[in-house]
């Protein structure tokens, strides 16, 4: 992560965060500085809510919940997140309005956008949180989500590809279920005909997503290995491999393979009423030395690996141009002193790091820190 020579080449940081009726905050105005920002407070005082709001401003989704309803303060109709992003000395004001049950609305510098999606990518963040242990120990869905989120952060276009793919998947799964339960596929040509149509769409969007993931894994591979070595010191090398339901690495090839596999598994798909082929069944396999990380890695190794995945994402986004803001939510508490020190060294070179810590928790010493106290819905600068 040593990049002092290009540190000022494409500086991006968050200068301000304002919240209205977001989670526990009726209203908040917070001024932020580049460098290390520490948000300190007792548990349950709303530190993670701040990190969640910042991440939401970049990705328009929460790392904790799937819908926007829990993000709106109890009793309020909607929540507003406003951030000021400084990019090469130019400021952009991004405002997001979250209304449960409705699409999020976005404004940039006061001007409304036709689709909130167009504000994606203006603020890029990489968040490392205690939940990330699931990247190593959890289900494949966690790792697929990791890859897809990173794809969208690199190229917002993939938000559309991902949404289209998920929609085709739902349409096709519903068709399979109804066809299976009524025995209609066997009996009538009509439904079989539409299944072919959905096969085609699934292969089209699925191949686009899958090929993008494969390229992403290639790009991440050396970075994860390097980040793991940096966090854990020495140790077995990290290997990443992508396990897919189909072979191939070019789009046409993958699409063709998906169609062929769907034809082969047709009976099983109809019987079970689920789509058995496509990137939604894939996994990113992580191993340390010769052993798979899931089930074999120790707690410390799992933490290091999860952290390495996030730091590698950070490096990748940084390499694309425009530094992401690094968010560390209560992670120093989870690491032993050696790893804590190494992480502190790594993040000291970041343009902006916003980290949370419980009162009394061990936080490494940084040269220049903007410290804030978080208590009862207020945030106060203390130095």
């Amino acid at each position, binding site marked *: 992560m040593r990049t002092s020579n290009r540190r000022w080449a494409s500086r991006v940081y968050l200068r301000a965060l304002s919240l209205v009726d977001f989670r526990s905050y009726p209203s908040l105005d917070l001024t932020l500085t580049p460098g290390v920002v520490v948000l300190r407070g007792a548990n349950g005082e709303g530190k993670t809510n701040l990190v969640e709001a910042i991440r939401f401003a970049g990705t328009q989704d929460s790392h904790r919940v799937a819908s926007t309803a829990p993000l709106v303060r109890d009793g309020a109709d909607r929540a507003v997140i406003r951030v000021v992003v400084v990019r090469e000395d130019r400021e952009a004001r991004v405002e997001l309005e979250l209304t449960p049950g409705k699409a999020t609305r976005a404004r940039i510098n006061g001007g409304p956008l036709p689709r909130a999606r167009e504000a994606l990518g203006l603020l890029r963040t990489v968040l490392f949180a205690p939940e990330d242990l699931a990247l190593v120990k959890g289900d494949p869905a966690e790792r697929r989500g990791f890859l897809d989120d990173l794809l969208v952060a690199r190229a917002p276009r993939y938000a559309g590809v991902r949404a289209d793919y998920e929609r*085709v998947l739902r*349409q096709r799964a519903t*068709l399979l279920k109804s066809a299976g339960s009524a025995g209609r596929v066997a009996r009538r040509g009509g439904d079989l005909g*539409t299944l072919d*149509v959905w096969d085609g*769409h699934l292969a089209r969007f699925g191949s686009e997503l899958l090929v993008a993931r494969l390229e992403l894994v290639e790009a991440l591979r050396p970075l994860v290995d390097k980040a793991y070595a940096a966090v854990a010191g020495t140790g077995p090398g990290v290997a990443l491999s992508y396990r897919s339901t189909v072979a191939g690495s070019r789009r046409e090839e993958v699409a063709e393979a998906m169609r062929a596999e769907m034809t082969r598994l047709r009976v099983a798909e109809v019987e079970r009423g689920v789509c058995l082929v496509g990137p939604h069944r894939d996994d990113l396999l992580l191993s340390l030395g010769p052993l798979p990380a899931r089930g074999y890695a120790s707690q410390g190794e799992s933490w290091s690996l999860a952290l390495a995945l996030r730091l590698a994402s950070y490096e990748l986004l940084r390499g694309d141009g425009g530094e992401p803001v690094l968010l560390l939510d209560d992670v120093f508490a989870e690491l032993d002193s050696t790893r804590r020190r190494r992480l502190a060294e790594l993040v000291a070179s970041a343009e902006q790091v916003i980290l949370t810590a419980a009162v009394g928790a061990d936080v490494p010493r940084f040269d220049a820190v903007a410290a804030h106290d978080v208590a009862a819905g207020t945030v106060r600068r203390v130095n």
Partner: protein
Amino acid sequence: MYEGAVQDLIDELGRLPGVGPKSAQRIAFHLLAANPADVRRLVDALTQVKEKVRFCRVCGNVAEAEECRICRDPRRDQASICVVEESKDVVAIEKTREFRGRYHVLGGAISPIEGIGPDDLRIRELLARLQDGAVTEVILATDPNLEGEATATYLARLLGPLRLRVTRLASGLPVGGDLEYADEVTLGRAFEGRRLLEA
């Protein structure tokens, strides 16, 4: 919550597409304050639309007779049929005055999630219209979204063996727009559908 009739009206209005609770409340109070004659006209219009309007026997478009105005018009080209999802799409295409053929309204698009399969659309009626060989071109003008595309693909395969010209409306850049403002999906489609310029 309001009392009795007012709340009933708000609830009914709120069930209409595109009307949220706030708008429903606004419309309800507008009607309360309005001239009784104006409200009567609205009531009549609503009653008439359910009593008089039916669907064209041939194309499925809204009509006030057995057949709609377009199907009855002898000047219309009998050789081409434009297939759309809803009656409102007919109105949209008619405004262009580009198309002189006739229409076929499917009544929706294939969407398993909503329980709509090919049998729920007016596809059998479309095939019946193509039987006598008078029609030589079918233009698929379903919406350019996932379900519309799926419906178009399905129809294209179904019509394949019939020796017709089956075309799909182009999708791409808006006229009078700037390239830089087009979203990636639209721009990508425009690339896919690019055509040779005749010098």
